[in-house]
C-alpha cells in the first residue's frame, strides 16, 4: 500500500464531516494502526475539518488527502474554492482552541497554514505503532 494516495472532496458542511471520518478510519484500519490510533486519526481529521469550516469566512470545499507511507500516515486537509466573504479573521475562541489542542495532542506532527488571518490548510502525520 506504500505511496498510495487517497483523496476525498467534500462540500464545506457539518453533515459531511462523518464521511471524512469514516473514510480515514477505513484507510487507517487497512494500514494496521491499532484501534486507539484509528480513533485518534478519525478524530484528528474531523477536528481539522471543523476548524476549517467553522471560520467566519470559510472555503466552499474541503479536500482531504491521505498519504500511505511506509511508517505512517500523512494527512492534508485543505480549504478549496471561493472563500465565503466575511471578517478575515481566524475566530479564536475556547471552542477552536480545544479543537486545535486535541489535534496537536493525538497526532505526532501538526502544522497549520494560516494566510491573511484565515486557516487554509492543516498538515498532520501519525506513525504506525507510535503512541
Amino acid at each position, binding site marked *: 500500500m506504500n505511496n498510495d494516495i487517497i483523496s476525498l472532496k467534500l462540500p464545506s458542511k457539518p453533515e459531511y*464531516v462523518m464521511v471524512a471520518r469514516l473514510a480515514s478510519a477505513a484507510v487507517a484500519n487497512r494500514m494496521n494502526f491499532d484501534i486507539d490510533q484509528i480513533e485518534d486519526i478519525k*478524530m484528528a481529521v*474531523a477536528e481539522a475539518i471543523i476548524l476549517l*469550516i*467553522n471560520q467566519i469566512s470559510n472555503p466552499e470545499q474541503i479536500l482531504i488527502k491521505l498519504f500511505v507511507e511506509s511508517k505512517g500516515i500523512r494527512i492534508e486537509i485543505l480549504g478549496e474554492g471561493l472563500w465565503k466573504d466575511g471578517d478575515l479573521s481566524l475566530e479564536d475562541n475556547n*471552542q477552536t482552541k480545544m479543537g486545535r*489542542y*486535541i489535534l496537536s495532542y493525538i497526532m505526532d506532527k501538526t502544522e497549520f497554514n494560516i494566510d491573511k488571518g484565515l486557516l487554509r490548510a492543516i498538515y498532520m502525520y501519525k506513525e504506525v505503532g507510535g503512541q
Partner: protein
Amino acid sequence: MDIKEKYMEDTKTWHVLIIGEVDVYNAPELKKKFHDLAEQHRGDFVLDCADLTYIDSTGLGVLISLLKKVKEYDGSIEINNLKPFIHKIFVITGLDKIFTIGVQEA
C-alpha cells in the same frame, strides 16, 4: 445520535442516555435538547455514555454549555460509563477536572 431521557422526581435528576456519535452535525440538536430539559426541570444531570461511541470538540462544547446552565441553579453533572478512548479526550482537554466522570472497565 439518539437521546433517551427520564426525570427522577425523588432525586430531582435527569437521567440521559446518549447513544451513538455526537459530532459537529448533531451537536446543536443535543445542545437544544439539554437546554430544553434544564428549562423543564432544574435538576442535576446524570449522563450515561455506555453507548456513546464518538464525541468531538463541538460535542464537548455542548457539555460545557450545559454545565454553565446547571451551575446557574447550583445543579451538577455526572458523566458515567465513558469508553476509555473517549475518556482520553476528556483528560487531554482537562474536562475530567470540571466534570464528575466514571469510566467503563476496559
